[in-house]
């Protein structure tokens, strides 16, 4: 097991991402943060907290999304959905910041983009990840990255608020 980021590194990376999000969107009005089940949920919550701290005038709605039923490998492997999706209200016209801990093949993000469509038509979707470990199988690119981490396909990357490790 190799530690790549410590808890302090994670906190600093998230703070930087929060500021990048504010800079890119010129504030946080009209934003909503949506974490992917399960790994992205804690991170989305942290980011929403950091964003509200930067601009206390506006609320940042926070949601979570389970993409099990949109995956392209349904039936090929056991799919056990995590917690139930929680998205309040329509996403029409909002800018969605989709949040996941680790970006790998991009298939989860593809499924998430499709799932989001069923909640309305966002004006834009941006992707924030703590770790981009490469090996993309689809044309998907993150907008905000905590750390680019070269890995081999068979390594396991674990990212939590306590740090990022390769196992």
């Amino acid at each position, binding site marked *: 097991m190799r530690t790549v980021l410590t808890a302090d590194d994670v906190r600093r990376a998230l703070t930087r991402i929060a500021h990048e999000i504010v800079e890119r969107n010129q504030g946080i009005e009209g934003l909503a943060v949506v974490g992917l089940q399960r790994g992205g949920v804690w991170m989305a919550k942290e980011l929403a907290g950091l964003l509200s701290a930067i601009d206390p005038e506006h609320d940042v709605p926070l949601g979570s999304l389970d993409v099990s039923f949109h995956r392209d490998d349904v039936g090929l492997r*056991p799919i056990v959905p995590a917690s139930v999706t929680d998205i309040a209200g329509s996403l029409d016209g909002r800018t969605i910041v989709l949040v996941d801990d680790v970006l790998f093949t991009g298939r989860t993000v593809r499924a998430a983009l499709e799932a989001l469509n069923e909640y309305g038509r966002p004006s834009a979707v941006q992707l924030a990840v703590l770790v981009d470990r490469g090996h993309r199988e689809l044309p998907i690119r993150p907008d905000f990255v905590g750390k680019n981490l070269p890995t081999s396909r068979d390594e396991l990357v674990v990212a939590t608020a306590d740090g990022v490790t390769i196992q």
Partner: protein
Amino acid sequence: MKHLLAIDDLSADDIHRLLELTDHMVEINSRPIPKVPALRGKNVVSLFFEDSTRTRTSFDTAAKRLSADTMNFTVSSSSVSKGESLRDTIETIAAMGVDAFVVRHRSSGAPAMITRWTNASIINAGDGWHQHPTQALLDCYTIRTGLNRRDGFDGLHIAIVGDIRHSRVARSDVQAFAALGARVTLVAPPTLLPPSLQGWPVEVSHDLDSLLPDLDVLYLLRVQRERMDEALLPSLHEYSQLYGLTDARAARLAPHALVMHPGPMNRGVEMVADPGELPGSVILNQVTNGVAVRMAVLFWLLGSGSDLAEAS
């Protein structure tokens, strides 16, 4: 798991997992566009040899919300009326490429028989007096949400009232409620109880009135007039005097108690009060939950890859 034929094929854990999966389906149904691509390309055929409106439409809606293709087989307009055997019917339709058959048949055991003739998954949508497993699952889900009992039914007292003898719903419900830990009391005149209750995890009473204040769930069964060919009841009026839910009886239920009915209701017989006026009535929730539960069953059998997991 390949088929869903009877509740006693499921462990308590299986039931819990199906109910958790149902939570996801309820969320899908609440979306502006309640449809996911999970079962794209799967073919689900409903094969109803007995009348049904709600179960059939419920399965149909469930399959469509998961993007499966659906085909309805109506017995009256099929070759069955020309004398085709059940086996030939199944093999013919299966040859078109079918992933699941949803079967309702007047003979107990017909769905189990069909599993021998095809590789498709078989879902029992009611066979004779035997089983109606998806009804029991949706009833469990309705109680689980209505009384907020996610972890099981320990300590709940459920009375099932009415024609237990002819009821596949009662047989499935008793097994499911007991598996989740509830105490189940059957309430019926002796002629409407099964000839033997050996092995049933239940108590029996003939006196509804004394039970009412103690109940968490009052489950009314339909008096099946079409099966009443043996003069089991002196009159429907007497039945409703003794076992029907009147306003006076409803007032004696605990404030939190749920009133359930699998439909279709005989108003004025088992349901004398207006169900729309009963605070505890969750009869329409049962119908709504039916779609979600059937989505969970279809996804579990066709989409979760659980067979592959067992094989590997």
